[in-house]
């Protein structure tokens, strides 16, 4: 069966059963569960240490009230990193290329930060919609611009992750196809293309981790404004 370049982004089904549920559950199965022992094995210790460092890094600039979000944001980051990295394996499906999934993460979490801000400190939350020291004639314009900027945040969060992952996967497939097609025709050019493919794969590994980090970092910044 001849595959098109966009078939990799189609949500997989098998006899009517959506397999995306399996793809989303996979990261949970891959990580070892902490035991009730006082000292765990090397892998669990390393996992605990890295989660601890990650949480510290993200929550250093945030007030005490925002630390309740530590478990949520840290687990979200590990989840996104795992999904992105697993999607770089050949013939796998990447759930984070689906805009619906990314928007399902971005919108509720962003909305939660806004509601928390409006509930706990409404004056500060509303006051942040006008930059300090704005000239008087520009006040209404800037308020409208800041409001639009506020509502565009979840859209930007979701689309940023989707677009980066989708573009990367598409590029990998295009260059891989080019290298494969050129191999019998022009072997030297095919080797150069394969080198480019190797470098691009390294870039995509970095992008996979960075985009997950940026997603969570921006959410923590939005939380910092409102807590």
């Amino acid at each position, binding site marked *: 069966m001849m595959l098109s370049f966009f078939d990799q982004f189609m949500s997989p089904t098998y006899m009517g059963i959506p397999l995306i549920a399996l793809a989303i559950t996979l990261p949970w199965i891959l990580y070892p569960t902490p035991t009730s022992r006082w000292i765990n094995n090397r892998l669990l210790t390393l996992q605990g240490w890295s989660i601890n460092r990650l949480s510290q890094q993200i929550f250093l600039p945030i007030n005490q009230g925002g630390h309740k979000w530590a478990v949520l944001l840290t687990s979200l980051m590990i989840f996104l990193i795992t999904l992105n990295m697993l999607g770089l394996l050949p013939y796998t499906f990447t759930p984070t290329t689906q805009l619906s999934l990314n928007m399902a993460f971005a919108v509720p979490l962003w909305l939660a930060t806004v509601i928390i801000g409006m509930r706990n400190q409404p*004056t500060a939350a509303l*006051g942040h919609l*006008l930059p*300090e*020291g704005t000239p008087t004639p520009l*006040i209404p314009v800037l*308020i*409208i611009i800041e409001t639009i900027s506020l509502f565009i945040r979840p859209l930007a969060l979701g689309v940023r992750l989707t677009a980066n992952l989708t573009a990367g996967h598409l590029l990998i497939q295009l260059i891989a196809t080019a290298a494969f097609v050129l191999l019998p025709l022009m072997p030297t050019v095919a080797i150069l293309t394969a080198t480019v493919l190797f470098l691009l794969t390294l870039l995509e590994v970095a992008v996979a981790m960075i985009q997950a980090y940026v997603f969570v970092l921006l959410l923590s910044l939005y939380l910092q404004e409102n807590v």
Partner: protein
Amino acid sequence: MLLVEFYAPARQLHVDMALVPRQDRVVCRGITYLSTMGGHDAGTSHQFTGLAKYFNAYTITGRRNCVLLTYASIATIALFFKLKPKKEKAVKAS
């Protein structure tokens, strides 16, 4: 004479207390700043008078009130156009 930059909101005014007179008044564009130097004042307190006391871009409550006023104005304009009676267009005889 203490020079005050009117549109320098992000910067704190750091003043050497020993060199500045006790009281200095700067009038800028209808908004009166009364900066009292010396003593415990850090030099950044703005005492607004009149309407600027409630609607300004410097204090957090002033900014909040500006935001609420803008939203109320937009809502009023939208409501006005929504409730405005539509004039029936006269049908031209063919």
